[in-house]
């Protein structure tokens, strides 16, 4: 049963896209990834609208003060096992917003980041590599199941 769950989870990981004050560059590239040219959905990956259904959460943008609390709330709503992917340089190091009064540090100050994809914005091929790596991590992680 455990094996079946793990296998099925890795075959259809649903991603949730979380924007914490991004400039929309990475968001547009992620949308292009789900479009016909780079078609991420052939791997069973689907963009979901609610964090409660998600397996992989893709975070873009430096964590702004306003979005920090909401981000933490959304991350706590995602059932285990979850994989956090930081997309672009913003969640990695705040990029050009470093030291701003309304930016609350890089993402790994608040949560555990599994895969970081660098670039500003990253090329869709690199994004795809990163998300496929996240799927691999999801398969490894699938031990504890704390759904519900």
């Amino acid at each position, binding site marked *: 049963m455990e094996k079946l769950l793990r296998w099925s989870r890795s075959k259809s990981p649903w991603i949730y896209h979380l924007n914490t004050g991004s400039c929309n560059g990475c968001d547009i590239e992620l949308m292009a990834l789900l479009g*016909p*040219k*780079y*078609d991420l959905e*052939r791997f069973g990956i689907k963009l979901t609208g609610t964090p409660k259904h998600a397996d992989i959460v893709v975070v873009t943008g430096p964590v702004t003060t306003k979005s920090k609390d909401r981000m933490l709330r959304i991350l706590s709503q995602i059932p285990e096992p979850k994989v956090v992917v*930081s997309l672009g*340089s913003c969640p*990695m*190091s*705040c*990029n*050009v917003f*470093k030291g701003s009064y309304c930016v609350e540090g890089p993402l*790994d100050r608040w949560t555990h*980041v*599994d*895969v*970081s*994809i*660098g*670039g*500003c914005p*990253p*090329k869709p*091929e*690199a994004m*795809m*590599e*990163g998300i496929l*790596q996240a799927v691999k*991590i999801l398969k490894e992680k699938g031990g504890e199941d704390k759904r519900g």
Partner: protein
Amino acid sequence: MAKIPFLKYAIKHIFMPAETEKRHHKLVEAPESYRGKIKFDENSCIGCGMCIRVCAPEAITKKVEKLDGEEKVTMNFDLGSCTFCKMCEDFCPKKSIKLTKDYSLITRDKSNLYERGSFIKKLPVKVEKKAPEKVIEEKK
């Protein structure tokens, strides 16, 4: 045929292959003059610090270690906070910074995303300046 627009294209597109790129499993080559991973040539760098001045996200740091009669300068390029704007390459007087086509910056631990290089800079030999002899004209 003429009254229904795009019908010709609709029929044509049925027989066309899918738009999706087949080479998903490997990274394709980036186009010409793509700004990717930074490559730093430590042998031609002079440590002028111009790249640090023009870098908007403060991704470049310079560390100076004082040795005996010379300095060990380490330039660290943090690719995690780079915006790949190519300003450092444009402003480098010795052309020691290059932005390559490599764009695969995927890592599980972000602390190993950097480009680093160190070189030894010789300090100019200090010549002890002799105090100029004061010619004091004695007033008589």
